[in-house]
């Protein structure tokens, strides 16, 4: 088993094909999308492949140590051009192929007109401890 981080982006990812802002969908389309996401998580819990998932706020800060006795530096809210993570899910799956398959399903979440969003998701394997027994 290996863990993978699936990242959803507010900005910074290539634009999805069905790119309509959520507030322009109908309330039913919004409901369908939320239900899809909830069902996806429930299903992965049932297969034992879900480790965790959280959404994060749209705004954040970059922060850096600025030297002894000085407060940390922030550059305030992110500038427009920066990549922004919207949320993450960690899955624990048997193969990379399975991680890609699940990310593909997640990207098919319904959007405007009930059509899949075709959103790009970033899939990053976790670095793990070396095995205690050599192959």
């Amino acid at each position, binding site marked *: 088993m290996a863990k993978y981080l699936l990242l959803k982006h507010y900005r910074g990812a290539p634009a999805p094909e069905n790119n309509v802002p*959520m*507030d322009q969908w109908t*309330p039913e389309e*919004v409901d369908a999308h939320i239900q899809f996401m*909830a069902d996806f998580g429930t299903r992965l819990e049932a297969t034992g492949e879900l480790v965790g998932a959280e*959404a994060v*706020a749209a705004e954040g800060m970059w922060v850096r140590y600025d030297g002894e006795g000085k407060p940390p530096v922030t550059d305030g809210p992110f500038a427009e051009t920066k990549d922004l993570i919207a949320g993450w899910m960690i899955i624990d799956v048997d193969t990379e192929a399975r991680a890609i398959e699940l990310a593909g399903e997640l990207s098919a979440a319904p959007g405007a007109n009930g059509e899949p969003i075709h959103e790009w998701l970033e899939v990053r394997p976790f670095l793990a401890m070396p095995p205690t027994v050599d192959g």
Partner: protein
Amino acid sequence: MSVDDAGLRPLVPQVLGVLVRRGADFATAEDAVQEALLRALATWGDDPPDQPAAWLTTVAWRAFLDLTRSATARRDREARFDAEPPAGAVHSADDTLRLYFLCAHPELTPSSAVALTLRAVGGLTTRQIAEAYLVPEATMAQRISRAKRTVAAAGLAGDAPDDVATVMRVLYLVFNEGYSGDVDLAAEAIRLTRQLTELTDDPEVAGLLALMLLHHARRRSRTRPDGSLVPLAEQDRALWDDALIIEGTGLVQSALSRDRLGEYQVQAAIAALHADAPSVDETDWVQIVEWYDELLGLADTPIVRLNRAVAVGEADGAPAGLSALAEVPDGVPRREAVAAHLHERNGDLALAARLYAEAARNAPNQAERDHQTRQAARVNELLRRR
């Protein structure tokens, strides 16, 4: 069998309180009580002693002596032990009250005070508290140890500050955490506040209990089975818990009659007016605005002004609500949501839709974000159909 099943949890603060009064340092006393609980679970079986609290006190005191055994210290403690009255009936309201003050000590961070209160006064296990806060058990164990050390370092084992306001703040924090895992923190906060009302004679404590009961009464109607939020206006009032409403309303009325007004009593009065209305349209919004004016006199915060603007909008119409809202600075959580609602009622759908979308972006939690996204989608659909 667990500490909960055996009914031991309510005894924890009593026993701990006795040990602390006898001069035990808080941190070691707390460990000793946990050990006594484990021994009780292991040995009582179906045959508990006649006086469980006395049994626990004796065992915990011995455990405390074991835990702190060292040549010189032991002599002092044994002399002190000899001088103590024998363990008998140990109920002492003062001891328990002192624990409340210790656990809400102002030197503690709010999260540490909450964890320590749940463990020492509430008698929850570290695992239960960790589950409720969705953090690893080891993390919570460290947080509690650190809190105990802070209390010990403040040197206040026998001399807790008696500011009941800090205790109430901690209990209200517990209440607002809601619940996850197998512990319902809102119910736990109510249990502890109920106990506190029996230990003190403060109308604000009664006000806090009333406020919790009145909010708790509406809990089943606040979310749909799928977890989505239901705003007050759309809640099914048949789901409200009448017994809790009656108890909460009675409590706040008798607290108010003592003429020592405080924030929690006022908030409870507002909650009682909501609970009292058969429908949102029949709510006495005028009286609610008056209570908000009272609340401003006690605590003039942007959040109070924001809530007041909602009430003014209902009592005197959207334009009046919008001018009340103008006094609330930007950046206050949920300001956009309130503005969106008032602009929608005022007929400015385009602005309302923009503000709902902004409220979704700035929402503090997933349920609220989903709710505001739906609102934006709903108003945008109205606009398209025009």
